[in-house]
């Protein structure tokens, strides 16, 4: 017997272990949310709680395994499994890693060693199920319970009719799709439940900001004129430029060589600085302190690089005087990028943006600022109080696109793609959607952009 016999497992042993640790379909259907569940359905499913690490005292992983054969009449045990609290998260992670070695050492079942008096030997796949439940509770249940409360309160907001209406539409949109539906049409292809940071008072992450920028990109791509003028890029452009051209000490010596290895960035640079296109993006100031500050801040800002007009357009929703100037490291990264393609000097000018008077809406306002820049005659700058409205509109719009793209991929449609896209992208930040029909599906009328 070795410490890590799994490392020496044969192909057949690995294949067998895969079967034993795989949650059977019947159990999966009974014990986990499935594809037929909307996000709201998934929240109502009864799942076990997690034992607090302060309460749980068992740390010997071997105590969770038994050489006894597992019980076979499992159907009667589903209710029991739903009720019994799981070990704490740390133990579940460790058990996952240790379980194959334990199986190689001859164990046949799993038991709830963290619960005194509970010694039923369950099948080995229960370890996998614990991990699935834990991941669901952490990445779906917990954030969406908060969103559900927020949406419910917003739907009952009698002082703001527009907001209430948007909340109703978003609620029904979320009800109409599986919480596991893939974000078809978006590059990350993550499940729809990953959008939780788009709603409530949550801080947005790069995935959500990139999703919003991709919606804007789709709008641009429906119009030849806009396509010829704008390049909408995700948050990674700035992140990569900063990595290539700067460090905390200043300018990197090997930056040109690193840049030349990055062909995709080089192509965008040519389009902007040689062909006069305009880059539209949102940047994160995590590693980009303002002048006189030591550290950056977890903050989203809009940024436009106008190649034809030779200017950087920069905004900051915090609107303090010192934030009217680009952070030095951000300016340095973009200026060095420019100098890889042209020696023309670029000015830095203000990009209009809504002033933020809360602690969570910079992502919304940064996106709105670049959307207004691209769609000046269709979209207006939000008022400070309208951030929630845009969040709701965007989640509705994203699901609309996913539904359409998913349908397009599964069934070959005879419709012109551009017409479909126009229909779903017409709703602008400042214009309200009509209320949803009874089935919760939203259809927006087609108008020329």
């Amino acid at each position, binding site marked *: 017997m070795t410490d890590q016999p799994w490392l020496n497992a044969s192909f057949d042993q690995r294949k067998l272990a895969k079967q034993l640790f795989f949650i059977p379909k019947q159990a999966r259907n009974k014990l986990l949310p499935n594809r037929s569940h909307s996000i709201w359905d998934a929240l109502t499913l009864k799942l076990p709680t997690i034992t607090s690490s302060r309460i749980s005292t068992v740390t010997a992983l071997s105590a969770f395994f038994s050489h006894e054969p597992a019980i076979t009449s499992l159907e009667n045990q589903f209710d029991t499994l739903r009720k019994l609290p799981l070990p704490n998260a740390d133990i579940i992670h460790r058990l996952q890693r240790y379980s194959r070695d334990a199986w190689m050492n001859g164990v046949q079942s799993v038991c709830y060693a963290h619960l005194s008096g509970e010694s039923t030997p369950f099948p080995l796949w229960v370890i996998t199920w614990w991990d699935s439940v834990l991941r669901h509770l952490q*990445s779906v249940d917990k954030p969406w319970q908060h969103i559900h409360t927020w949406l419910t309160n917003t739907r009952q907001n009698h002082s703001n009719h527009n907001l209430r209406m948007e909340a109703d539409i978003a609620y029904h949109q979320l009800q109409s799709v599986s919480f596991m539906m893939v974000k078809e049409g978006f590059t990350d292809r993550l499940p729809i439940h990953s959008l939780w940071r788009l709603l409530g008072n949550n801080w947005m992450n790069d995935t959500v900001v990139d999703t919003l920028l991709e919606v804007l990109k789709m709008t641009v791509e429906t119009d030849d004129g806009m396509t010829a003028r704008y390049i909408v890029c995700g948050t990674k452009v700035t992140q*990569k430029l900063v990595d290539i051209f700067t460090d905390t000490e200043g300018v990197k010596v090997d930056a040109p060589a690193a840049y030349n290895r990055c062909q995709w960035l080089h192509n965008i640079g040519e389009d902007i600085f040689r062909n006069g296109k305009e880059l539209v993006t949102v940047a994160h100031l995590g590693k980009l302190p303002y002048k006189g500050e030591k550290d950056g801040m977890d903050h989203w800002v809009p940024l436009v690089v106008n190649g034809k007009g030779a200017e950087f357009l920069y905004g900051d929703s915090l609107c303090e005087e010192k934030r009217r100037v680009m952070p030095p490291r951000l300016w340095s990264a973009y200026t060095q990028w420019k100098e890889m393609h042209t020696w023309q000097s670029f000015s830095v000018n203000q990009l209009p943006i809504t002033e933020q008077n809360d602690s969570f809406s910079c992502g919304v306002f940064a996106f709105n600022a670049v959307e207004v820049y691209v769609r000046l005659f269709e979209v207006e700058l939000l008022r400070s109080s309208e951030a929630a409205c845009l969040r709701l509109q965007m989640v509705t719009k994203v699901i609309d696109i996913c539904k359409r793209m998913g349908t397009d991929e599964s069934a070959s449609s005879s419709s012109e793609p551009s017409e479909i896209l126009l229909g779903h992208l017409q709703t602008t930040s400042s214009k309200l959607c009509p209320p949803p029909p009874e089935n919760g599906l939203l259809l927006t009328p087609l108008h020329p952009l």
Partner: protein
Amino acid sequence: MSEEDQHSTQPEIKDEDANAPINVKVVSSTGDEVFFKIKRSTKLSKLQGAYAAKVGKDVGSIRFLYDGSRISETDTPASLDMEDNDTIDVMVEQVGGCH
């Protein structure tokens, strides 16, 4: 690379090119490099999981980019037309809202 991928001798290889392994370099924002050998038909999500485990981070907190585009769960080296010795950029999740 996951343990499963290390078993590169599949009994039924239908498409030799699709299963031919390639070398992929994963580079972090600090310049650290990790090398993987992966079959062209293997989902890159396995590589992502293996990388996250190696650097001790949650895979959800890391972004993997190939040629400037984010790699999704279902992408494979073949679907992205990756070639031997290609590079994947790793970036950390960014979250912002302000104070």
